[in-house]
Every structure is written in C-alpha cells, then in structure tokens.
C-alpha cells in the first residue's frame, strides 16, 4: 500500500503503540484486498460484545488502553454496537456474574480510548447518520448496509478490530465499497408482491441475500411501488446482510445512488407472494410451546417500541414465556419517559437497553432458562440463532405478541 508521511510515522511508532498496532492491522487487511492507499474515515462504529471478544479480546483492549492518553485516544468520533449484557436486567435473563465482570472490563477499556458508548446497531436512527459520499468505518452489517444503501455513505464491513484500528488512525484501507467501481449493481430482482410487515421485509431480504450469497454482489431491487419506512428497510437490509453477507443494495428511485449495472442489466429474478410465504414456512412451528419472544436484531426504533406497547396493552404475557424487547439506550430513555416501558413491563415483558440478544451469550441464556423455541419478527435473528441451539419461528409482530400471550406458537 502507498503510505503518506504521517502513515509512515505511525507505522514507525512515532504516534505510539496503539496507532502502530492499528496501522499494521489495516495494512495486512488492505494488502489482502489490493488496496492502493488509505481513505480518511469520518467516524467509526465498533462491535465489541464480550461474547465475541472473550477474555483474550478484552485483554487486548486493556493492553492498548494502558498506553498514555495521547497515544490511545481515538482520532474520529467513535461509537459502539450493542454490548453483551444490560446491567439492569442481566440476572432476569439468566446471565452470569462473570459475564457482567468481563463486560465492565471491556467498557472501561473502550472508554479509555475515548469511545462513546452508544451500544446500538441503529445509530442511523438514534445517534447521527452519515451523508452521501461520507467514508466511514462501520462495524455491524446492518449498520453498514443501511449507511451504504439508504444513505449513500461508504463503508466495508469493519469488524471490531478493524473499526478500532480506523478509530485510532482516522482512516481505513481504500478497497471494496469505498470505490465507485464496486458499487454498481451485479444482480437484479423484481418484487411482485408488497411485503405486509417487517417480518416479510426481512423475508425478502433473506431471499435476495441467499440468491446473492457473496459480499461482492450488489443486488438491485425493482418493483417497489410505495416508499418503505426506515424500519422496513432496516429489516430488509439486516436480513440481506445476514443471509448473503451483502453490504450494499439499490432500490431505484428510493435509495441514495442510481449506479446502474456492471455491464448490461442482468435478467431479473422475480420475488412474489409464493416465495415470501415459502421463506416464512421454513420457520413455521404452529402449536409448539413458546419459550421466548424477542424483538431485536436490529434494535427497535421508538416507533416499533410504541407498536409493541400498543399491542400488549390490557394483556398478559404467558407465565412460561419471556417477552424481550431490545433497543438502544437513547430509545430506552425515551420509552421510559413516554411511558412505553411501563406499559410493556406491566404486561410482563422486559425492555432491555444496549443489547441485541444474539450478541448476549445466547447459548448460555438458552441453557440457563431452558429455552429452545424462540419467536421473533426479525429474519436476521432466525438466521443466526439456529447455531446457538434455538428452534426459531419468524412471524409478524402481532403474531409474536399473540403467541407470547398464549404461551405457544400461533
């Protein structure tokens, strides 16, 4: 990679050990992807839940954070993805004291870098959104795909180490979706049926993602007649990124860029009612006893929390079923202030902040609570939790609530 004077000095250790570590990591990744040089990043978003970090990752953070302040402070505004637990509710979810202790160590280390602990995967809805053309280093697939597609910002998937490296150096290797030539469409889809709810938007994202199946494919989705909401595209994008590892999509006339295709437009793959229903049917489990209903992955917007509150008013969650809502700390505070948390908890639900369920020791929670059957309106979540031993069902928010009340999958 071509380095400027400042980067060569960083590599030589003139700005301290953390920035040297960061630039070495970025060069290894950049050269792997044939990056010619670096591009300045305006902000970074770090995924650093302790289930992923483990003891080794926390020690790594602590080691870097022990450097002098001038050497360890992040160079650009840096925020965090959801954490491993919410200190206010972790005991109710069967999480352990050692998890809380490890989490606190990670938080202390991240704060020492000057990281802003936003603990959210919906920063574009709750913190600050990047603008079109803005080069950023985002460390959550749902965050990256929304920023790239809906907002026209530019980010690769920057896992925790790379996002931290970008925060410390203020730059990121220029490859992948920082380059114009990689942002043009490669696959084409025609939507023939309007998704009826967020679960169905997620299903469409899952269908497109499975068809693409690669980080390097850029789907163009046509046929959308009504402008989708931010939450609809949030569910679509997170599912697309989860099922396909895809970081960018285009919806002509809706999303930020109209890039056309690489070469002539490919033949469109049709997605109609039959395909959406078939996707949902993969997760059907009507009649099964229901252990836990999760609204999260992505964290809920304020509008979604209000919808949950409206749906549970005057009802009571079944005593054998846990109903969990996850959202950002900012939205939780708003929900508290507006009485939404009280309404959900009066019905027997739990509203947690700063977590997103699957990043929260999902396997250990399942074992501690004897959970197997999980229901959610998040297509992303059903894709992930199978590996953690859950049997997931995907359904609309209303069906999830009705099932939580009944204690079985309706």
């Amino acid at each position, binding site marked *: 990679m071509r380095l400027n004077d400042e980067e060569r000095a960083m590599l030589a250790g003139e700005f301290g050990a953390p920035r040297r570590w960061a630039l070495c990591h970025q060069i290894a990744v950049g050269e792997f992807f044939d990056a010619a040089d670096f591009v300045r990043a305006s902000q970074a978003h770090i*995924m650093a839940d302790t*289930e992923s970090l483990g003891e*080794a990752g926390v020690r790594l953070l602590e080691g870097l954070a022990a450097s002098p302040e001038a050497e360890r402070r992040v160079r650009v505004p840096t925020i965090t993805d959801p954490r491993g637990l919410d200190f206010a509710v972790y005991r109710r979810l069967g999480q352990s004291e050692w998890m809380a202790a490890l989490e606190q160590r990670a938080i202390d280390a991240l704060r020492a870098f000057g990281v802003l602990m936003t603990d959210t995967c919906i920063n574009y809805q709750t913190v600050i959104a990047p603008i079109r053309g803005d080069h950023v280093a985002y460390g959550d697939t749902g965050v990256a795909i929304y920023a790239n597609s809906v907002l026209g910002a530019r980010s690769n998937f920057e896992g925790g180490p790379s996002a931290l490296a970008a925060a410390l150096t203020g730059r990121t290797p220029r490859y992948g979706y920082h380059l114009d030539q990689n942002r043009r469409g490669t696959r084409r889809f025609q939507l023939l049926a309007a998704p009826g709810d967020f679960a169905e938007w997620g299903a469409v994202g899952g269908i497109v993602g499975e068809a693409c199946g690669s*980080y390097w494919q850029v789907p163009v989705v046509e046929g959308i007649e009504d402008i989708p909401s931010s939450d609809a595209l949030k569910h679509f994008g997170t599912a697309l990124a*989860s099922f396909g590892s895809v970081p960018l999509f285009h919806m002509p006339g809706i999303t930020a860029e109209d890039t056309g295709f690489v070469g002539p437009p490919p033949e469109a793959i049709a997605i109609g009612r039959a395909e959406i229903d078939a996707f949902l049917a993969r997760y059907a489990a009507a009649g099964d006893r229901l252990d836990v209903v999760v609204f999260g992955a992505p964290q809920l917007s304020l509008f979604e929390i209000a919808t949950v509150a409206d749906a549970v008013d005057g009802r009571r969650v079944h005593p054998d079923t846990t109903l969990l809502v996850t959202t950002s700390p900012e939205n939780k505070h708003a929900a508290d202030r507006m009485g939404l948390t009280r309404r959900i908890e009066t019905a027997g639900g739990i509203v947690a902040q700063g977590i997103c369920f699957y990043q929260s020791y999902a396997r250990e929670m399942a074992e501690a609570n004897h959970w197997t059957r999980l229901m959610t309106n998040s297509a992303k979540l059903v894709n992930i939790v199978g590996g953690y031993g859950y049997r997931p069902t995907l359904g609309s928010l209303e069906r999830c609530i009705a099932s939580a009340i009944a204690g079985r999958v309706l």
Partner: protein
Amino acid sequence: MSIVLRCHNGIGPPVVGTALVASDNFSARYDLDRINGIFSRPTHKLAGQSYVDRILVLNDAKGGVATAWMLHEMMARLIAPRGLIFNRVNPILAQGAALAGMALVDRFEGDVTRLFRTGDELRLDPAAGIVEILNRDA
C-alpha cells in the same frame, strides 16, 4: 510428489494440517459451538464435526462481523482451526485472520471445495499464495 496450487497472497503464517472440506459458507457466530469446538448449526454440511486444528476449506463468508474477534478468541483457547481456505472471503474473515495470526488464503483458479478433499494433508504458504497437497499426486 505433491500438487501445488496458486492463489492470491494471503494472511498469516505458513501452516501444515489436514483439510476439512464442505461446499458451504462460514461464520464463527452462526455455525460454531466454540465451547466444544464443533460445527453446531444443524443445517451446516459439517454439523457435528470438530474444526479444531483442521484447515477448513469452504466456499464463502456468511454475514455477521463477530468472526473478526472470534478467531482470535479461539486461537487463545487453542480451540481454533489451523488455517482457512475459501473461494473468496469478505473483509470480516480477513480482519479476523489478521488479528488472530491465522493462515488464510482465497481466490484460486477453480472451486476450492472441489480442488481439495477432506483428509488432504496441506501446506499453506499465505505470503507466497501457494497451497501444496502433500499426500496426493497430480
């Protein structure tokens, strides 16, 4: 005699190990029981098999960013794959391999899930972009 295959220059140190091959994709979070060192996702083609000390040969990376930390975490507990061979990876696998110091290569001529077989004894040289099959002739 051995078979020598070339690929894009990779990440990590040279390693020797036994291949575990499947025409499937990979995420440490989605697919692994990292406590017991096995593939745990029921629908994965390697479900129930141990990945520890194997050179995994798979198609592509799945969604999710956790692998960027998890490879490092697994290496620290000595319950990690020895190396990774993919058709093409996403940045997360490359970032994870870079952090963990784990051998990773991709971008071969041909489909790696067909070029390699489970049980092949492999020598990976990521810096040179070379993988050698030690127990098969051309």
